[in-house]
């Protein structure tokens, strides 16, 4: 405790306030229900924050188990630590991008703390502690099996050093992204912040996933594979190697580059901490709060008898529930930072997969060539088509304005219809345009236009099935649940795993259904029937779930 107090006070924060606020934040996280907010009925299934974290722990632990055999095979402490740390870097980075950017940049607690005698440094340190507790735990879960393996191979000291290096890397990753957001908050004028944050989210996500992509390319290229990866000047370009030097040093693999890497790692930690502290404080929360308080638009009052706006008229032919949901989703996407950032954090991955899928400049026609080859080449495009709408569908249930969900309970709307229309809006606004572009590209690449059209039809039906499944799994009324920490990344990684099923199905359909006109008709017919059955299943499940549903917000 004495050491912790000394550390907190050395950072310039008030220890007692830091302790009190950190404790409260963690209590709030563990007490909040995963699906709290408007739908108490759902809360029973969602469980507590502890249960939610337990699920995440299992998932990260499972990913971690997959890394351990690589460590065992590589044996070399530096190389194996670099591989594990790279995975940690990617996982922690993704989690912060999807999850904690909102914790860092949205001043939820500003209204509670702004008028109290809390310094900016203490405020920052509390926020940082909260992020670090989560990211460090996830990093440990992800690397636990690998650290144990290193311990078995090289002894307890190496395992201990690997653990310290791991925490250093995790902290540096968190600080790096916080510093980036903090810098944006510092330099961008208040009235442009909201838009700028969206662009930043897009760019950082794109950059981050491009980094993953380039990393994959680099490590799988024959030239790099032929290299004996020893600590050297070029390995220092990769931050994970800085911290991988620690277990290497403990195993007796010292050297100038290892020491240099460790120094770089230490400098990065100190430097990023200083930059973050400078840029993220109560005064920045104040800037954000001022941004959210200030009325952004003062449109002129419409003239008497003026026609309703185009958007409103465009939906006039749709059902009332559709119009209500579409209006809400559109407004949330435009103005709810959390929702938009949640969607934008997934969008770059979809674009990247689209680009990666097309990178060779040619795509095999699944109707004429080998189905296996086609599946290999098209899988990334398929993931992009399935992942984005599914994630979006899951995000549609969550909003800071969840208490306003009372309106669904006190009006004569039918919950199953609202849910179905929410899915339709997602399909029409996001999936259909994506599939239209993809259809054009595929028709061009395949050289036979109707091959492209049919494949996109099949993909659309499978994607609709995936959306139905997402709703079957977790039916929630639009924006009726308060968002909770670790939900977005949990859903993302969970969806990624579940994606194996529709991808496998597409492979099977291409192998057996695309071989003859009858097969194609049977494929389309079968998928249509499956979609209809899915619709019935969703409708029945939602009706049952909504029966006796209560509003507790």
């Amino acid at each position, binding site marked *: 405790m004495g050491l912790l107090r000394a550390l907190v006070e050395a950072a310039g924060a008030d220890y007692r306030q830091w302790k009190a606020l950190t404790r409260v934040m963690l209590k709030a996280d563990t007490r909040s229900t995963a699906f709290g907010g408007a739908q108490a009925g759902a809360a029973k299934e969602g469980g507590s924050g502890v249960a939610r974290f337990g699920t995440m722990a299992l998932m990260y632990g499972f990913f971690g188990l997959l890394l351990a055999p690589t460590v065992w095979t590589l044996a070399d402490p530096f190389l194996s630590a670099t591989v594990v740390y790279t995975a940690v870097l990617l996982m922690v980075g993704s989690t912060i991008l999807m999850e904690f950017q909102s914790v860092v940049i949205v001043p939820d607690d500003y209204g509670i703390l702004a008028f109290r005698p809390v310094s900016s440094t203490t405020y920052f340190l509390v926020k940082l502690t909260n992020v670090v507790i989560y990211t460090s735990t996830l990093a440990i879960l992800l690397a636990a099996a690998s650290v144990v393996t290193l311990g078995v191979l090289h002894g307890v000291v190496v395992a201990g050093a690997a653990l310290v290096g791991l925490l250093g890397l995790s902290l540096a990753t968190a600080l790096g992204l916080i510093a980036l957001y903090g810098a944006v908050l510092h330099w961008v004028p208040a009235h442009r912040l909201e838009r700028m944050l969206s662009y930043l989210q897009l760019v950082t996500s794109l950059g981050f996933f491009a980094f993953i992509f380039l990393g994959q390319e680099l490590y799988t290229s024959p030239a790099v594979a032929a290299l004996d990866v020893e600590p050297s000047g070029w390995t220092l370009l990769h931050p994970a190697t800085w911290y991988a030097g620690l277990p290497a040093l403990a195993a007796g693999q010292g050297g100038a580059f290892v020491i240099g890497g460790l120094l770089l790692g230490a400098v990065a930690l100190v430097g990023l901490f200083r930059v973050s502290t400078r840029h993220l404080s109560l005064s920045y929360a104040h800037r954000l709060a001022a941004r959210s308080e200030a009325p952004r638009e003062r449109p002129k*009052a419409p003239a008497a008898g003026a026609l309703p706006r185009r958007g*409103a008229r465009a939906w006039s032919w749709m059902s009332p529930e559709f119009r*209500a949901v579409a*209006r809400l989703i559109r*407004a949330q996407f435009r103005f709810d930072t959390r929702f938009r950032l949640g969607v934008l954090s997934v969008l770059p991955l979809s674009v990247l997969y689209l680009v990666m899928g097309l990178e060779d400049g040619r795509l095999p026609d699944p109707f004429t060539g080998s189905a296996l080859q086609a599946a290999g080449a098209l899988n990334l495009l398929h993931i992009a088509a399935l992942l984005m709408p599914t994630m979006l569908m899951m995000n549609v249930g969550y*909003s800071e304005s969840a*208490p306003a969900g*009372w*309106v669904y309970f*006190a009006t004569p709307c039918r919950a199953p219809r609202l849910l179905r229309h929410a899915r339709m809006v997602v399909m029409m606004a996001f999936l259909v345009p994506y599939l239209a572009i993809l259809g054009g590209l595929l028709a061009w690449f395949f050289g036979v236009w109707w091959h492209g059209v049919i494949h996109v039809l099949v993909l659309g039906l499978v994607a609709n099935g995936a959306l139905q499944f997402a709703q079957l799994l977790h039916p929630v009324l639009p924006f009726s649940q308060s968002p909770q920490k670790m939900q977005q990344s949990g859903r993302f990684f969970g969806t990624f795993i579940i994606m194996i099923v529709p991808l496998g199905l597409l492979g099977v359909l291409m192998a057996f259904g695309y071989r003859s006109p009858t097969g194609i008709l049977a494929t389309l017919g079968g998928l249509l029937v499956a979609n209809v059955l899915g619709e019935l299943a969703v409708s029945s499940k939602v009706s049952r779930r909504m029966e006796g549903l209560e509003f507790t917000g």
Partner: protein
Amino acid sequence: MIETRALTKRFGDTTAVDALDLRVEPGEILGFLGPNGAGKSTTVKMLTGMLQPTSGTALVAGFDVVTHPLEAKRRLGLVPESGAVYETLTGREYLEMVADLHHMDPDRAAKRIRDLLGLFDLHDAQDQRLKGYSKGMRQKVLITAALLHNPEVLFFDEPLNGIDANAAMVVKDLLRELATKGKTILFCSHVLEVVERICTRIVVIAGGRRIAEGTAADIAARAGTATLEEAFAQLTGVRDTGDVTRDFLAALE
């Protein structure tokens, strides 16, 4: 008409509403009073279909809220205590959404929205997002939303929260006029003077049970006090306010 028969709601071991019998006739404004945690909002939530009763019956406009929820909800309007709205929508968009949820004809809804917002002086702000509205402006939007479909039964849970004096006068007059047109109104408020002035009858509850009923004068007379405020304090077991103030100040010493 609003009617509850032995309406009960339990949360675990806690009984929030305990076998409550209530009846509000068309043309009546029932003042629904009680101290914090008495069960007022829980009762309103059960009557509007937001909470399921543990037992008993809740009828709105003759329809059982549990067995015929949509029929009941078509005939009710609610201003909730929370005042929660989707802040990303503009005032007009929010009202359009509510109109859609009530299946109102879009043209008719647009005209009514324009008219009602004008009456509340919100015409100029109708295309601003609700996030930028003051608390009072939001409350006006919620009152408009509750009236939009011209319901038979109205539930007003602290409707004057944050509303300025002029708008409050409009709302009070409006409630009286609505009652004369045969609407059934349940009015919850902690502001006893307002309740006393506009409600035709008052029900006081505490611990989820009805403890007094009648006009303000009846209740005060039965409690042996001069005012409704004093009767309320006596009925709901509040200590002498002078004693409480003195104890507070002593605790700060």
